[in-house]
Each structure stands twice: as structure tokens, then as C-alpha cells.
């Protein structure tokens, strides 16, 4: 019995101890995760940066590759359809491709960086990287490739496509028969590729100041269709289409700053000053083409290419709220365009270089200055009735020297001065364009609108076939504001024959006259919808 009691006691004590142990284990278990959590929290604090991104990759191959312009030998006369429009601004090539979009930033939103790659591996791929410190600094970098294909079925026998010298292939026998040409034809793409790198920066040190700067570099390479004539027996015979080389760069850059504050009369006021520059550089000033005709009098012709040039523009804009619920915005801008590239020779045909063809200058020293002054005053006469009064002055002042060429060569085929054209003078056309307008608008509700407007436009031309044009216009808009009508009357003052500038160009071209195109003296046009 004692043993039973002892056993029972032992059992109870054992159970009690087991329970205590179990309890203590549970208690320990309850405390351990807490400690572990604390330790974990200490070891891994809340991350300060977040990350997000997507990456998509793949590959492409063709079971039946559509024609993409790959040279495929002699296909003259075939009717293979062109896919130039399909591939006009893109190029889907076999191989890998991908898309990437990555972003990171701080949790407080202060910093953020975004990166993206689009159409990676294709001919129209682009990338950008945006980084910012919110409210203060913004930087954006970009790189873009944009093809522009005009043709993928063009065929030529010229060698050196893309360079400034198009030559006949070795073994080519001059002539226009298929037997001469076909053996040497091959396909080539006609198109250009634009590679653009850019960077933009914006700085907002305070809420009142805003500063921006930007720079971009555009590189163009490839070919475009061009035409050359004079290879044959006469000037107007045998025009030939050739691939013109395109190899140039355009750099655009700008810097502007803006201040926004309060005017002396206690209203909002902004002042913005800006500079924008542009530099165009052409790798070639001209290119030469060997003549393929057997009856031609010259071995080669020369065509000019766009000259390198520059532009610099300065502008200032003022926007100010005025008393009586009016606002004035005025802009004045001054732009200088310059071009002083060396002239190419009158002709590359030595036989066509008589003494009279000495150039009057080695370069143009071209200079065009433009001045823009735009002034707008808006007034809120009543909450529904507003007025806009505007005046715009745009002066296109062409200061390029006018050069007189006593004799000139219209085509390289001429020989020994025979056939050279008589005197020609370049014209530096200038004009001043002025616009004045007043618009009254009544908008009783959001959907209903009635407006009337009057506009006056005046052109003053210099060295052109028209001296002055005046145009009065009236505008009406009514219900729904989507059915406006307008009427205008234009009058032109045409200079007399004695005062009309002359270029002494061939008769067929001298009539490039807006006087002939715009003989409207006091005519009017019926209201037209737009």
C-alpha cells in the first residue's frame, strides 16, 4: 500500500515536474521568439532603399524571313514587294531582345532612380536614366536609336554608297543597256539612322528659382535619294537617281533660369531668361558621282550637301498678374543663324572652267537675325466674359551678302564655257510679320461659349516679288465652341517691274512669285470650318 502510495506520489510528482517542465518550456518558448524577434529587428533594420524592376528577355528567329533588304544579287525587274514601310522606323532582326525597367529610391521619397531599356537588341532601341532628389535636383540621361528607312528594294551599281564618292564598279562598261547594268546591280537600303544622346538637368534651389540645362547630340548616318543630271548628251537628259550620303551631327544645348515672386503691386510675377544654341556639322560639303553613260561628255558630276551652320538664341519672358484681374505676358527673343562654310568649286569639270567663273567670295558669310516680340494682355471682365489683346512682331532680317555671279555653270556637262548661264545674283529675302488681335469670349457655362475675334496680319517683304500684304480676319465661335467660322480678306502690293528684284535666272525659274500665286486683291474667302 505504501508502495502504491509512494508510486502514486512519485507519479503525481512526476506529472507535476513534467507539467512544470512543459510549462517552463512553453514559457521559454514564449520568451525565445520575442528575443529572436528583437535580435532580428536589431540585425535587419527597416531598409532605407526600395527596389523594383522588371526584366523581359526573349529571342526571335524566322522560319520564313521576310525581305529586309539583305543584298541578294541580281533581282532587277523582279516584283518582290517592298517592306520599307513596315520597317520604316524599326528593324526587327533575328536574335535576342529584351526590355528592362529598374527603379530604386529611398523610402522617404527624397531620392529615386529609374532606368529603362526599350527594344534592346533592335535597331530602334532606347535607354533612359532618370535620377532625382525630390524638389531640388533632376537629371535625365537618354540614348535613342531611330532608323528611318525609305526603301529596302533599291538597286544600284555604284560602289562607295554612304561615302562622298560614288564610283563605277570595276569592269563596268558605260552604257544604258541592260546588259551593261544588270550584272552589276545589287540591293541596298536607302535610309538613315539617328543616334541621339541627351542629358537634361533641372535645379530648383528654392520655390522661387528654377534652372534648367540640356544638351543633345544627334548623329545621322545613311543615305537618301538624290538626283543628278547632265551625264548624257544634254543638260536635261538622263537624270539619274543616286544614293546621297548622309553623315552629319546636330548638337542642341540650352540654359534657362526663371524667378517667380511677387511684384511691387503684390501680384504674382515671373521672369525667365533663356539661351539656346544649335550646331550643325556636316562631314561632307559635297559628293561626286561617276557618269555611267557612254555618250556623256563628262566623267563625273558634283552635288553639294547641306553646309555646316550654327544658331544662337536669347530670350526673356515676363509674366505678371495685373490689377483688375488682368495678366500680361511678354516675350522678346533674338535669334542669330550663321553659315560660313567654304564654297565648293563651281564645277569639277576642268573643261568647264573659263576665267569668268571665278567666285566672288570663298564663303557666304550668311547671317540671319530674327527678333520676336510677343505681348498678350488677358482680362477677366466678368467671371464669364474674358478679353485677350495681343500684338506680335517678328522680324526676319536676312543680312546675308547678295553675291553676283557673272557666269555660272548649271550642269557639269558644259565644256569650255559653252552653255554656261548668264549672270545670277543671290537674293537675301527679309520680312517683318506683325499680328494684332482682339478676342472676346463669353462662357456662361462650361459647355456653352460665344466668342468673337478680330485679327490683322501684315507682311513687309524686302527683296521679294511682293512688298506688302495685309490681311484682316474675323472669327466667330458659338454653341459648343466646336463650330467656329472665320473670314479673311488679303491685299497684296506688288512692286513694279522696275523695282522688282531680279535674279536673272532662267525664265522657267524666275517666276517663282507669290505675286502670281496670291493675286488676291481685296478678295475674301467664305467662312470655313476647322
Amino acid at each position, binding site marked *: 500500500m505504501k508502495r502504491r502510495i509512494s508510486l502514486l506520489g512519485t507519479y503525481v510528482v512526476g506529472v507535476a515536474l513534467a507539467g512544470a517542465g512543459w510549462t517552463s518550456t512553453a514559457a521559454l518558448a514564449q520568451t525565445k521568439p520575442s528575443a529572436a524577434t528583437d535580435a532580428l529587428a536589431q540585425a535587419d533594420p527597416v531598409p532605407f532603399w526600395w527596389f523594383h524592376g522588371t526584366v523581359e528577355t526573349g529571342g526571335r528567329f524566322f522560319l520564313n524571313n521576310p525581305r529586309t533588304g539583305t543584298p541578294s544579287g541580281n533581282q532587277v525587274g523582279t516584283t518582290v514587294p517592298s517592306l520599307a514601310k513596315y520597317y520604316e522606323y524599326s528593324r526587327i532582326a533575328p536574335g535576342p531582345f529584351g526590355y528592362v525597367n529598374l527603379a530604386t529610391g529611398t523610402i522617404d521619397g527624397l531620392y529615386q532612380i529609374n532606368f529603362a531599356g526599350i527594344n534592346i537588341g533592335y535597331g530602334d532601341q532606347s535607354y533612359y536614366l532618370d535620377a532625382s532628389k525630390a524638389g531640388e535636383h533632376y537629371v535625365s540621361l537618354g540614348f535613342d536609336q531611330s532608323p528611318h528607312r525609305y526603301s529596302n528594294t533599291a538597286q544600284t551599281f555604284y560602289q562607295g554608297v554612304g561615302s562622298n564618292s560614288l564610283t563605277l564598279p570595276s569592269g563596268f562598261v558605260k552604257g544604258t543597256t541592260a546588259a551593261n547594268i544588270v550584272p552589276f546591280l545589287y540591293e541596298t537600303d536607302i535610309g538613315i539612322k539617328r543616334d541621339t544622346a541627351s542629358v537634361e538637368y533641372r535645379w530648383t534651389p528654392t520655390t522661387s528659382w528654377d534652372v534648367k540645362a540640356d544638351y543633345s547630340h544627334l548623329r545621322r548616318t545613311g543615305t537618301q535619294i538624290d538626283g543628278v543630271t547632265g551625264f548624257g548628251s544634254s543638260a536635261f537628259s538622263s537624270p539619274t537617281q543616286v544614293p546621297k550620303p548622309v553623315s552629319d551631327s546636330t548638337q542642341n544645348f540650352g540654359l534657362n533660369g526663371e524667378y517667380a515672386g511677387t511684384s511691387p503691386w503684390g501680384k504674382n510675377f515671373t521672369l525667365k531668361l533663356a539661351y539656346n544654341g544649335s550646331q550643325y556639322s556636316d562631314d561632307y560639303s559635297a559628293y561626286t558621282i561617276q557618269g555611267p553613260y557612254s555618250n556623256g561628255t563628262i566623267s563625273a558630276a558634283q552635288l553639294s550637301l547641306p553646309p555646316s551652320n550654327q544658331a544662337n538664341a536669347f530670350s526673356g519672358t515676363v509674366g505678371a498678374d495685373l490689377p483688375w484681374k488682368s495678366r500680361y505676358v511678354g516675350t522678346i527673343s533674338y535669334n542669330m543663324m550663321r553659315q560660313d562654310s567654304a564654297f565648293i568649286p563651281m564645277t569639277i569639270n576642268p573643261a568647264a572652267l573659263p576665267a569668268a567663273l571665278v567666285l566672288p567670295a570663298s564663303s557666304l558669310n550668311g547671317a540671319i537675325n530674327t527678333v520676336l516680340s510677343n505681348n498678350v494682355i488677358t482680362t477677366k471682365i466678368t467671371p464669364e466674359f474674358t478679353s485677350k489683346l495681343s500684338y506680335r512682331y517678328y522680324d526676319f532680317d536676312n543680312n546675308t551678302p547678295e553675291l553676283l555671279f557673272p557666269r555660272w555653270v548649271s550642269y557639269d556637262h558644259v565644256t569650255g564655257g559653252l552653255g554656261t548661264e548668264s549672270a545670277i545674283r543671290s537674293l537675301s529675302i527679309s520680312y517683318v510679320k506683325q499680328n494684332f488681335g482682339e478676342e472676346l469670349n463669353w462662357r456662361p457655362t462650361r459647355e456653352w461659349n460665344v466668342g468673337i475675334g478680330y485679327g490683322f496680319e501684315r507682311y513687309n517683304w524686302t527683296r521679294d516679288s511682293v512688298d506688302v500684304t495685309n490681311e484682316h480676319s474675323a472669327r466667330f465661335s458659338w454653341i459648343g465652341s466646336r463650330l467656329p467660322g472665320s473670314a479673311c480678306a488679303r491685299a497684296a502690293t506688288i512692286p513694279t517691274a522696275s523695282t522688282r528684284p531680279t*535674279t536673272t535666272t532662267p525664265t522657267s525659274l524666275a517666276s517663282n512669285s507669290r505675286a502670281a500665286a496670291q493675286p488676291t486683291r481685296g478678295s475674301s474667302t467664305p467662312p470655313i470650318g476647322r
Partner: protein
Amino acid sequence: MKTSSVVVVRPRVTDGLPIGDPNTLKRRHPTPLVLIATIAVLFGAAFAFCQSASAEGALKVTDISAMLRGQDTVKTQAKLQQSDVNDGAFSALSAFAQGIAAQAPAHANTSAAPLDEPAFAALKGFAERLGTAQPESMKSMPKVAEADNALDALREFMQGGSTSAPPPAASSKSGPVAGGKQSRPLVEATYVGAKVCLTCHSTQAEAFGKTLMGRIGKTQKGKFDCENCHGPGSAHVKAGGGRGVGGIISFRPEDQARTAEENNGVCLACHERGDRTNWHGSTHETRGLMCTNCHTVMKEVSRKNQLKTAFEPETCFQCHKDRRAQMFRSSHMPLREGKIVCSDCHNPHGSNTEALLKKDSINDTCYTCHAEKRGPFLFEHAPVRENCDNCHEPHGTVNENSLKLSRPRLCFECHQFGHSPNAGISSSFTMGRSCQNCHTAVHGSNSPAGGAFQR
């Protein structure tokens, strides 16, 4: 809770203001009963204050004192924005303060004000300062009381007033909710703070936090609080919420309660600069467009400029269906391919040039990418120099190179005396590039032999 309010003001008493310091009070009322009562009130007030001050970023007595002294105003105002608006006492005081502040002259000098009751004067002074403790963007919002149009301004002027005169008390109690039209019934509302808004609008706030404005709002507390743009929300809250309820500004284009000008005025309070300088009088402004017709503020959809669509042209094509159709013509610039966008050439907020162009002229716009056409050239082609659009339609055509007409018809628009205009299709004058088979440099030639644009 009124007791705590009084105590909040009391520290001002210790700041040497005209009503004297506590010692002075103690000497005036030295009886034990008063002392005990004072101590009890102080302890009670201190306890109540500690309850509210325990919240992070809450307003402290020193802050209020500093503000009353005109010190560290910015810091205190920032804290005011962060303070726990759920504190009923503070909310009541804040509302009361805003009400008083709105009645006060713009530049009232409270210390010099001839007040009969010193305690009331102190409270009123504090209230005025607190009422002006609003973010700058809030202050610059459209004010109801100011003359809303030129006629009203003229009327005030004739009555000897000024457009900048303080508003009438009756209308000044309302915030920008009332909008800019006088005919609109005013809604009495006060600011409740962003935390109250988040009770229901946490989803929108989270999305907004990922936008640029939202990011700036995170780092510059109070700059982009909800009510800065949506107006004071107390009436909205009391009414239980709902789109446009309680005078809250929804900015939705379909919300007919407010005009486009009223809604735009909220945005322009900060954004009437930069590209938006020419907004007033611009085509889109006179058409009655709202900022939110094109932009979405509360979520990030586009890479830049908070547009409604990820692809910018789709935003423009909401209205400009004709341009969308042109873009799909066979000859077009790479707009639909995403290489250029409308805003590369146009500034939809207004500009100095026709068609909302960004540059000074159409040609200057084209020269941005086509600088080889800029010249000056030795031989200029007059219509080219005048306007690229004389021959091209940049939005797309069915002719090569986005020409308005096919060649040679385009050239015949001016050159009626060209070579054999009636030549057959096999003629070199009409086939291929037609006139440009020979006159290839129609944009101008810098060759001494380019007088006919053939070199």
C-alpha cells in the same frame, strides 16, 4: 479641455507680456485657497498637456510661445501641420483661431492692439498667428473675397477700396472651397489635417506618395497636404464624405460644381510659371480645358508630367482625333512609334507662336531636328525659308516626305511655267521624284552652281 487651452496660453503670461508674470499674479492672490486651486489647475492642465504632447511631433508650449514671440515661425508652423489633429482641444482651438485670423487685418500687430481683456487679447493674438500658420500654397489659393473680375475690381476701386483689401468677415470664413464665382453658395469649412483624410483615402494617398509631388510632400511636410489643393475638409468630413460633398474639390472633369477656371486656379497658384506662363488666353484655356483633362495628380501614369496616359499623344488624341488619323497615314513622323511626342514641338499650355509651337516660328521648330535645312543658303528657296508648312504637313500625309501634294503638282502650285507639265508618266519630269529628279536642292543650295537648286 478648455482648461488645457487656457493653460496653453498661460505660458505666454510668463513671457513678460503686458498682463504680467505669474509672480505678479501670485502676489495679487496670496490666499492659500487660491494657491491650492491654482496648483490643482496647473497639475490638471499639465497632465492634460502631457497626454497630447506625448504624441510625436505634437505642438509644445515652447513652440507656441516661440510663435507668439514671432520666433522660429517656420519650425512651429511645420509642427502645427504635424500636430495630432485628433486632439479635439487643438482642433477646436485651431478652428477658432482660423476664424479669428480670417477676421483680423492682414498685418495686425496683436501686441499693440487695444484690447480690454488681457487674456482674450493673448488668446486672440495666438489665434491670429495660428490662423496664419498655413502653407504658402494654401495662402496663394484663390481668395473668394478678392475681386473676382475686372468689373468688381473697378467697382471696389470707385468705392475707394482696393482689390487687396481684407475680405468681408462673412465670406472670409470659408476657404478656397467656395471657388472663384461669387454666385456660388459658400461652404463653411475649416482644415482638419491630412490624418483625418487618410482615414478614408489611404489608398489614394499611397499612390500619391509615389508621384513626384507626393515625394516632395514626404520630405517637405505640409507642402502637399490634401487640403492644400482639395480645400478645407471639415464639412466634407461632417457630411460623411462623398465626391464633392461638403464643398471638397474633386478636380474631376465631370464634376459640374466648379468651373474649369476655379479648378485650374488651384493648380496655377503654384504652377503659373515655366511652360504655363502663357496659359491665360491660350487656345486650350479659352476652350475651357482643365488641368485634369490631361493630367492626373494622384497617381503616376506617365514617365513625366503626370499625364493621364502613359503614351503622351494619347492624351492629346482625346480631342485631336484628326491628328491621330493623320499619324496613321503612310507618310508620317515616328510619332506612333513613340520616337517623338506632341510636346516635342508644341506647348499645350500656350506659346508665343501659332499652333502652340514651342519655338519662335514654324521653321525654328523644324530646325530642332532638321538643322541641315536651316542655312542660311547662298540660294534660298523663298517659300521654304518662309514656312516649311507651305509644302509639308508634319502630322502625316499620303505623299512622300509628308508633302501636302504629290510632285509635280506641288511644284506647280507656284511654278506654272515648268518644263512640260503635261508630259506623260514616263517622262523624267514626272516619274520618280519628278521635279526633284533634277532640282534636288529645293531646301536651298550653297553651291555657286546651285542657282536652279539642281546642285
